[in-house]
């Protein structure tokens, strides 16, 4: 499965972009100090609000902080929140979805009700209000809140998928052979879900990054931390638009969009492997288009001959 996924150009581009940001998240401060020779938080009142130039490639903030350095360091908090939120969200989705799907009956009724409830509740305002009460908390708490509220869509997918797996021939056969339930879930059913789970996990990362950015933008985050969301919030608060300082808010937003697109592209690839129909449809189309291409080539060829 891994090799099939890697064959897609979308996945390769997605992974490459993701890797760049992952490196920035892990080595951000080191990159800033060793390669750029500056500190993201260092104030420099001699270089205030400069537009991008050779000294500061992405310009400076109102306190002379280097925007490029901030973008690189900001990757850590943004991605950390996304990652933790995705881990919590995926774990809850597996817990609720697989349990409900596998055991059915009363367990399913209760768990499915909770899942449906979380699906129809507007999660962002809920997250916002809870985070609002805990104002100024660290990224881990924020990630916790985002993860705890954002698992329901995934749980529904896993539930439906588990339900179809439960009644497949091979699971029924295993049951007949007296296989234990635990072994059935962990050895037989679970590996079949890996495609869905990984897609869900990737989706959770971007969801977490977006949610963190949204919360930070509304002013709910520790003001001492540097994340892409706090950068955009600072820009908004200091009227970057009216002053035309686009370099305050364009780079961090572009990073979020790039990460999200990378994740989306990877998911495309996983999808095409996980649901064969999307793949076979592509193949049919490719055959059809190559036939049309051949026909047009023949036609233009005959026209050229005439």
């Amino acid at each position: 499965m891994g090799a099939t996924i890697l064959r897609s150009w979308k996945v390769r581009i997605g992974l490459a972009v993701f890797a760049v940001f992952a490196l920035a998240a892990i080595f951000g401060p080191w990159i800033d100090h060793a390669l750029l020779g500056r500190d993201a938080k260092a104030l420099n009142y001699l270089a205030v609000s400069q537009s991008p130039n050779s000294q500061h490639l992405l310009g400076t903030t109102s306190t002379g902080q280097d925007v490029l350095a901030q973008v690189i360091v900001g990757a850590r908090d943004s991605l950390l929140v996304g990652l933790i939120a995705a881990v919590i969200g995926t774990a809850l989705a597996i817990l609720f979805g697989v349990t409900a799907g596998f055991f059915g009956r009363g367990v399913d009724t209760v768990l499915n009700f909770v899942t449906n409830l979380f699906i129809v509740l507007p999660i962002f305002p809920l997250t916002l209000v809870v985070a609002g009460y805990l104002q100024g908390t660290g990224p881990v708490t924020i990630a916790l809140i985002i993860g705890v509220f954002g698992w329901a869509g995934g749980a529904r997918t896993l539930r439906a998928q588990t339900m179809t797996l439960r009644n497949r021939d091979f699971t029924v056969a295993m049951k007949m052979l007296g296989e234990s339930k635990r072994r059935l879930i962990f050895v037989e059913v679970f590996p079949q879900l890996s495609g869905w789970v990984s897609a869900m996990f990737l989706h959770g990362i971007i969801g977490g990054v977006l949610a963190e950015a949204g919360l930070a933008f509304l002013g709910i985050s520790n003001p001492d931390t540097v994340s892409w969301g706090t950068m955009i919030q600072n820009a908004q608060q200091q009227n970057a638009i009216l002053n035309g300082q686009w370099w305050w808010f364009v780079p961090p937003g572009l990073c979020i969009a790039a990460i999200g697109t990378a994740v989306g592209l990877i998911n495309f690839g996983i999808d095409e492997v996980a649901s064969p129909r999307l793949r076979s449809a592509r193949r049919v189309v490719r055959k059809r288009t190559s036939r049309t291409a051949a026909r047009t080539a023949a036609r233009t060829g005959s026209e050229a001959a005439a």
Partner: protein
Amino acid sequence: MTQATADLILAEQESGAKTPVRRRWGFFGRRVGFYLIAAWSAVTINFLIPRFMPGSPADAVIASLQQHSGGPLSPQTIGAIEKIFGDPKQGLIHQYGSYLAQLAHGNLGLSTSAYPTPVGALIAQALPWTLLLLGVTTVLAFLIGTAAGVICGWRAGGRLDGGLSPLSTFMSAVPYFWVALLALWFFGFRLGWFPLAGGYNPDASFGSSPGFWLSTLRYGFLPAVTIIFSSCGGWLLGMRNMTITTAGEDYVLLARAKGLSPGRIVFRYAARNAILPQFTGFALALGSILGGALLTETVFTYPGIGHLLYQAVSNRDFPLMQGILLITTLAVLLANFIADSVYVLLDPRTREQGE
């Protein structure tokens, strides 16, 4: 792609597998029941959130209000706050009872940042703006995204699909408020085509004059385009994948074999069936569109619920935050209920009379 789309495909498979077919009214009744319980849960969650947070909610509100006004509060004010936020000395059940009684009278308490304006009045002022903005943009985004999705899915792997699918992935990954900032900076500041803040021209007389309505169109244009831009990508991807799935079904093959015109096959056979899960996906999408609209309003200083929520958060106005959360939750539940009901009308399987 999105996990939501995958989810839709599964939900569809699942509902298709259910035989015998449920009666329409049984289905309907179950949905009504679910939404009633959901509404009750929303009210209860709203009651519980402040009480699970560190410190007593009433004390926190009293403290912040005292900071604002710079002096001790009158006993009536303290009484009003304790009424809505629960006297910490009372039991939880008792607090819950009085909270429900307050709600039943439409009382959401008093705003602390705009004291002594009732929360309900502030929300009533802001709600129409958001409802109008969201109503228009949700319908437009749905129509645009779904139509583009049919085209992409029908010619999956084609040139249009090759371009639009990654683009819509990008569009749905971009944060709403960032698109809003870009739009405001470029079209508002650089080109000067649109106003930079507000929901209407303050010089035009508020109300029914045509000048006022024209100005709301001009002021609402950028926020609307932003929301449509960020939210139609999701619809596109969902519809694209469902169209690919239905395009491989036997009945589409039969339609082809019968020699029906491609347009008829696409719209009467493939798309008609592919669109059903889009309505079930409404629930998933609506919450995120609302969240995005709240942020977008903040950027444009649009006089809706989102901007009000922003002010509530920055002023730590907890009664207002609570009230907005409750109202938006109930509004989303209502919209979902309507979407579900439409689904019942569209899907013959939920409509058939018994076996």
